[in-house]
């Protein structure tokens, strides 16, 4: 309270004083006597109330939801950011578009240039000041960054992150905690002037206030004034009950007295600032001035101007009755009443009050969507944190949680899933089809977007995390990876038999997997078998390698679910979630440098002290060169295999690796694809697992393409690492050949797996090459 210098006296200047001191004195004494008697007679009851109110008071201090932040957008020359992306990012981060940028949190767009006044923010790697700078964009990239004042070039500017969610206490409330010293002084003094002029002096109850109110009400013939002190109002807010019985009032009065006995005025007022009910956002109550300031003005409390402070004070009397969005006229009248009271008590000069009364309400048209819009991702965050925190702590400790979510990518991913599935319905597939999507950074394993429902804003079953579905052919690349690791036996050109195969299963039944096209393709190369996803060839290859080894491979790549080592595994009779599939493919996308997928990077206390850090951890796979060769094969799936429709959906992109997956009776559609910088998995199917008429290419791949069309893609890097290299080979015989020989194709080989025989054409050329080498040497 030290900051509030002006203090209103307990007396009113204008309020009628209808009775003399004697009258007051009698009432006062009588009331105290009654209270004393009650306390004496009903000690247990008082003790009970005491326990209740103190528990509530102490407990409330802890009820701070954890704040969940998106990844912060790094702006630097060359960063892939389109104007649309930047605007979306700013909007989601609560920046306001204005004509003239004057304050942090504002931006302006003019002629392909953004002027941004970044807000200050405390990151896990330290605090960052507010900064006023401009961003030039060209060709989907940042082309320059400059300070607005002075025009100095900036090499890196990080925006403060969007707050994407709050993890709430069980009660449906939301608050932004305010410290008394941070609240505008006018709010502190104004509240007392309007609601409780004797706050500083009364013991929790203000009998004079009650009497005065009673008289005013009596005169008016209706309830115009309330006699409740701030303390009583606080108690009422604790036990939000609209019951207006005498018993209730009595309880409240006693609890108010008890509160005053336990805590000092500053503590009570601070609790009041954070507790009072000031509005309703859907199912969530808006409590406290900090939250209300965000809710009505989209601004932090300390930045509010006089008319805005007055409006909030006015709302205390009835947040729904004076709702400034629904009843602006009523709200304005109320605000101006408050302004008049502030003038009357000397808190505002006449001129200040006049100009404030003339100001518009300044309320935003719509409150910013509450933080729950990305709850599929937030569920993942909770999952990661639940290994360390109790759910209860997340909801009440006011933690600051830093995550990897890219709001821009998340918006694109949600649109890709929703629009993609709508589109499939238009093309005759069931409108009840569901979908899921996971997008991650290939190298860092950071999850950038996650969608678990075709209606992404619906909280419910999160398919990305929890739908365990057969994966079908998207497991096949691992069978071929195992083969490639055996360099003495296999390379991409090794021939394999694609004739029908029948197996006796442990339960005595026969299993005869057919090809999708129901044809036999005779002898094919490993490359062809993978590119066209032949079942018969894959099962034969798998049998040579062993189901155990495939299961081990899954474990090495981060699958923790138990998988039975049966031959049906070769064709994907394994149930995994989209997230697990993403983990497998992250390793492939990163060239064998596996990174456990992450959604959280750091956790801080409310004060910004670091609690936890989740550093990036890297686990290199053995035989990474085999992964690079496999990636090449998967780019061929896209250019000429089961995913050959993809390039037309994406336009010019450079190499992309991908694999489709379809399960029996077309129940599940999978697509997994990666580039050098992104890996994503999409799934489409029916929740009840009934046949859905979907294939990898006709459904999941469409969703995948819908997303990647909108992303900035770095094509797959087809340079081979140590231990693998490119060779020219004859497309038919698989023999080594020369670049200019007929049917020469380039193919990656792992050291030791390359063909040794040469075509006649190469043998001839080699003689010449040797000659020319010597010739060149001597000519130099």
């Amino acid at each position, binding site marked *: 309270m030290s900051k509030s210098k002006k203090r209103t006296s307990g007396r009113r200047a204008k309020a009628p004083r209808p009775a003399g001191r004697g009258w007051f004195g009698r009432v006062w004494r009588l009331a*105290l*006597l009654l*209270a*004393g008697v009650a*306390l004496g007679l009903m000690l247990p009851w008082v003790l009970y109330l005491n326990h209740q109110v103190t528990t509530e008071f*102490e407990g409330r*201090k802890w009820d701070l939801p954890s704040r969940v932040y998106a990844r912060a957008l*790094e702006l*630097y*020359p060359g*960063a892939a950011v389109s104007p649309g992306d930047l605007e979306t990012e700013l909007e989601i981060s609560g920046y306001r578009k204005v004509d003239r940028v004057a304050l942090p949190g504002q931006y302006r767009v003019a002629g392909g240039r953004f002027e941004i006044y970044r807000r200050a923010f405390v990151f*896990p*790697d330290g605090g960052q000041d507010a900064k006023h700078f401009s961003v030039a964009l060209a060709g989907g990239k940042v082309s320059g960054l400059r300070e607005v004042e002075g025009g100095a070039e900036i*090499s*890196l500017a990080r925006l403060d992150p969007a707050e994407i969610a709050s993890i709430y206490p069980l009660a449906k409330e939301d608050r932004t905690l305010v*410290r008394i010293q941070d609240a505008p002084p006018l709010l502190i003094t104004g509240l007392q002037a309007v609601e409780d002029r004797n706050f500083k002096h009364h*013991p*929790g*109850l203000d009998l004079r206030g009650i009497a005065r109110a009673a008289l005013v009400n009596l005169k008016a013939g209706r309830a115009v004034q309330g006699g409740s002190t701030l303390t009583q109002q606080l108690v009422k807010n604790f036990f939000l009950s609209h019951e207006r019985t005498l018993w209730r009032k009595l309880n409240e009065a006693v609890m108010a*007295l008890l509160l*005053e*006995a*336990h*805590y*000092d005025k500053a*503590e009570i007022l*601070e*609790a009041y600032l954070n507790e009072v009910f000031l509005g309703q956002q859907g199912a969530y109550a808006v409590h406290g001035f900090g939250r209300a300031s965000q809710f009505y003005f989209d601004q932090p409390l300390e930045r509010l101007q006089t008319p805005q402070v007055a409006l909030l004070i006015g709302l205390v009397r009835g947040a729904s009755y004076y709702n400034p969005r629904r009843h602006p006229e009523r709200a304005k009248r109320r605000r101006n009443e408050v302004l008049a009271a502030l003038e009357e008590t000397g808190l505002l000069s006449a001129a200040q009050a006049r100009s404030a009364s003339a100001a518009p309400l300044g309320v935003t048209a719509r409150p910013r969507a509450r933080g729950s819009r990305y709850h599929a991702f937030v569920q993942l965050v909770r999952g990661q944190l639940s*290994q*360390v*925190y109790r759910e209860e*702590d997340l909801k009440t400790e*006011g933690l600051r949680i830093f995550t990897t979510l890219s709001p821009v990518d998340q918006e694109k991913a949600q649109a890709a899933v929703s629009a993609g599935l709508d589109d499939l319905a238009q093309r005759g597939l069931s409108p009840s089809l569901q979908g899921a999507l996971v997008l991650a950074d290939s*190298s*860092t394993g950071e999850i950038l977007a996650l969608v678990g429902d075709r209606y992404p804003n619906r909280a419910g079953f999160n398919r990305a995390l929890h739908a365990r579905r057969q994966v079908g052919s998207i497991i096949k690349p691992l069978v071929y990876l195992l083969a490639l690791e055996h360099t003495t036996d296999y390379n991409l050109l090794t021939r394999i038999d694609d004739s029908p195969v029948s197996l006796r299963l442990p339960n005595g039944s026969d299993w005869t997997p057919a090809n999708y096209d129901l044809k036999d393709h005779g002898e094919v190369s490993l490359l062809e078998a993978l590119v066209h996803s032949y079942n018969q060839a894959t099962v034969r290859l798998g049998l040579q390698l062993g189901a155990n080894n495939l299961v081990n491979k899954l474990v090495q790549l981060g699958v923790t679910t138990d998988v039975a080592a049966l031959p049906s595994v070769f064709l994907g009779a394994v149930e995994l979630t989209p997230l697990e599939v993403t983990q497998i493919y992250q390793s492939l996308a990163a060239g064998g*440098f596996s990174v*456990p997928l992450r959604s959280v990077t*750091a956790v801080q*206390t*409310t004060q910004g*002290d*670091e*609690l*936890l*850090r*989740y*550093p*990036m*951890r*890297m*686990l*290199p796979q053995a035989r990474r060169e085999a992964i690079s060769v496999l990636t090449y094969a998967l780019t061929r799936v896209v250019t000429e295999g089961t995913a050959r429709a993809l390039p037309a959906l994406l336009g010019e992109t450079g190499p992309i690796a991908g694999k489709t997956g379809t399960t029996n009776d077309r129940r599940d559609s999978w697509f997994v694809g990666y580039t*050098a*910088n992104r890996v994503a998995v999409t799934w489409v199917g029916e929740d009840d697992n009934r046949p859905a008429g979907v294939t990898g290419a006709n459904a999941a791949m469409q969703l995948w393409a819908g997303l990647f069309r909108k992303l900035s893609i770095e094509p797959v890097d087809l*340079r*081979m*690492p*140590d231990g*693998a*290299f490119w060779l020219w080979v004859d497309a038919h015989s698989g023999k080594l050949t020369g670049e200019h020989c007929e049917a020469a194709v380039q193919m990656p080989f792992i050291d030791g797996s390359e063909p040794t025989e040469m075509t006649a054409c190469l043998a001839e050329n080699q003689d010449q090459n040797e000659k020319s080498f010597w010739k060149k040497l001597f000519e130099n």
Partner: protein
Amino acid sequence: MKNLFGKSCLKTRLHLTPAYWGKLRAGLLPAVFALVLLGLLAGCASGPGLPAPVEEREEVETRVRTPASQDSAGVQVFPLQNPAVRELLTGASTAESQGDLGQAAVLLERAMRIQPRDPEILQSMAEVQLQMKDYEQALNFAVRSYDSGPRVGEICSRNWRTIGVARDNLGDRSGSLEAQERARACMNTKPAGF
């Protein structure tokens, strides 16, 4: 009777009640310890970085950076670096020299988000991990740096020297010797695999 509800006779109790925020902070402290401990046990999270003991920093200087820079006389690879990455690397290097390895690692991760396969960033991370005594991660980052790097010159030598020190500390004596050989070879072998 006024005193029954007034402040004065109950003032003593008020003194027992610390301020609103003080309590919040105090209550969180035990939680902080418990959580950090849990995190460490889980092996997936680390607490705030403590300054690295001097000997770890010396090890990186004497066994990795100095010899690598001596080796490289004549063979130098200067990749073009994004100014944003340069700024973050400078920050990381400052943090490292002040012994704030946690901060250095966070800045390097930021740089990695911008250029995930930059050999210089990966190698710097490997050297920070070496000082944090996380030899496994040091090894892994150095391997990735080598894989995506030029495989010749100073950075190649730093890659293999880091791998050598890490293997040494992980008890792989012969692997460490082999790495030292590879470090020397960085100066006279052509890059393979392109």
